[in-house]
C-alpha cells in the first residue's frame, strides 16, 4: 500500500459552513466508496475558509492564502491505496471535483541508507 495526500481544492473562500446539503450527502457516502474501491482514509481535515489564512514569505506577513487563486485548499486527507490507478479512481469520486478539483500527491518516504 502507498500513501497519498489528497488535497481538496474548492472555489474560494471554501467555507465549510457554506457546504450545500447535496454536497454533504455526497461527502457522507464517500468513506464507504473509498473502502469499496480498495482504499482507506488514514486521516483527514477540513480547513476554515481561506479568508482566515495568513501567508508568511520571508519577513513579510500577508492576509490570505499563500497563492491567490480562484480555487483554494479546502482540506486534505491521507489516503492509503495499492497504486495510483486506485487512488485516482477514489479521487474522481470526491465531490470536490464537481466545482473544484483534487490533487493526488504521494507521501515522501525517506530512502533507506
Amino acid at each position, binding site marked *: 500500500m*502507498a500513501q497519498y495526500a489528497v488535497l481538496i481544492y474548492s472555489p474560494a473562500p471554501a467555507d465549510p459552513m457554506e457546504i450545500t446539503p447535496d454536497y454533504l450527502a455526497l461527502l457522507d457516502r464517500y468513506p464507504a466508496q473509498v473502502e469499496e474501491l480498495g482504499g482507506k482514509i488514514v486521516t483527514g481535515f477540513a480547513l476554515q475558509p481561506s479568508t482566515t489564512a495568513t501567508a508568511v514569505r520571508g519577513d513579510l506577513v500577508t492576509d490570505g492564502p499563500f497563492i491567490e487563486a480562484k480555487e483554494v485548499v479546502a482540506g486534505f486527507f491521507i489516503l492509503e491505496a495499492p497504486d495510483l490507478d486506485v487512488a485516482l479512481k477514489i479521487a474522481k469520486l470526491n465531490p470536490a471535483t464537481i466545482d473544484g478539483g483534487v490533487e493526488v500527491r504521494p507521501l515522501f*518516504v525517506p530512502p*533507506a541508507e
Partner: protein
Amino acid sequence: MSDAGTAAAERAVADAHRREWAFVLAATARVAGDLDVAEECVQDAYVAALAAWARDGVPEKPGAWLTATAKRKAIDVLRREKVFRSKMPLLVEPAEAEFPEESGVDVVPDDRLRLVFTCCHPALAREAQVALTLRLVCGVSTGDIARAFLVSEPTMAARVTRAKKKIAAARIPYRVPEAAELPERLDAVLTVVHLLFTTGHTAPTGGDLIRADLVDRAVHLTRMLLALMPDEPEVRGLLALLLLTDARRATRTDAAGRLLTLEQQDRSAWDRTAIAEGNALVLGAFRTGRVGRYALQAAIASLHAVAPSYAATDWPQLIRLYDELLNRWPSPVVGLNRAVAVSMVDGPAAALAEVDALAADPRLAGYHYLPAIRADLLRRLDRPEEAADAYRIALALVANDAERAFLTARLAETTRPARSEH
C-alpha cells in the same frame, strides 16, 4: 573468433534490438520491479550478446536468450539492493497480475502491453508519454529521441528521468487496464503512436519534410499493438491509417525535395502493397461495427488511395465520412479538412465560408494550414490580393522548410502580374 562470426553477431544483435527490445524490457521490468534497473540490465544483455553470439553463434531464439540474460542481471541487482527494495518496491505489480489465468479473459497477459500502458499512463504529460514510449518500448536512444523532437539531449534525458521517477514515486501500476478503462486508456496509447507518426510524416520544423525513422517506428509499434490486441478495431484503424498515409511517402516531394500536393502526386508510384493492406484493415475495422476515429480517418485515406485522380475522387462520400468523423471527434482540424472536400463538391466559395467560420476557433490560432487552405480557396476564386495576404499569414506560421518553400512559390504565383491558368 572469426570476422564473419562477429559480423553475423552484430547483425543479429541489431536485428534483435529492433524486433525484441520491447519484449525483453517488458519481461525484465516485471522481475526488476523498476524501469531504470530493467533498462540497464537489458542494455547490458545486448552488450553481452555481441561477444557471446560471436563466440558461440547466434542462439535459435535471440529474444529468449536476451530476456534470460537480462532477468539474471536484474536478479543480481535485486540481491545487492535487497534491503532497500524490501522497504520500497518501485514498480507496482498489482496482486491480480500474479494470477493471469484468473483475472478474466478481458485482459491480455503480455508484458509488452503492460509496458505500453504504463508509458502512456494519463498521469504522465503527453510529451513524457511519447519520450518514454520511444525509449522503453522502441529502445530508441535518448539522443535520437532528442534529435527527433529537436530538443537538447539533456532536456530529453531530464524528461525521461522525471517520468520514470513519477512512475515509481506515485506508484503508476505496471498493468494492462481492466476492460472498463480500456477504451479510454487505449485511446491515449493510440494518440501517442499517432503523434509519433505525424511528427515523422510532416516534421513540424526543420529541413526535411519527412522523418522516416519516426514513421517506421510508429508503423512497427502499431503492428505490435495489433498483434497483441487483435480484437480492437481502433488499433486496426490506426494501422490502416498509417499504412495508407505512408503509401504516398515517395511521391510527396519531387527530386529536389519540393513538396507536391495530393493533386500533383504521381499516383502510379504509390505503394500498392501498403494500400492493399490498409484497405483490408479498414474493411476489417468497419466489419466489427465499432467504428472509431482512426478507422474513419483510415477510410478517408483509403478513398484517396483508390481514386484514379484528384478530380475523380469520391468527394461526396468523403464529406459523409468527415461528418461521421466530426460526430466522433469534434476537432476543428477535421472541419478544416472537410472544407477542402466541400470545395470539390460545392465549389471554393462554399468552402471559404466554412473555413472563415472555423477561423474563429481559438484552437486553430497559429495553425498554418488554416491560412494556407484559405489562400488556396481564394486563389481558386481568382481573388489574388486576398490569397497573397493569406499565404503571407501562413508563411509567418510555418516552421518546416519544405512547406515554407511550397507556400513561397504559391505566393509568387499569386502576385505575378500575368497569372497562369489555375
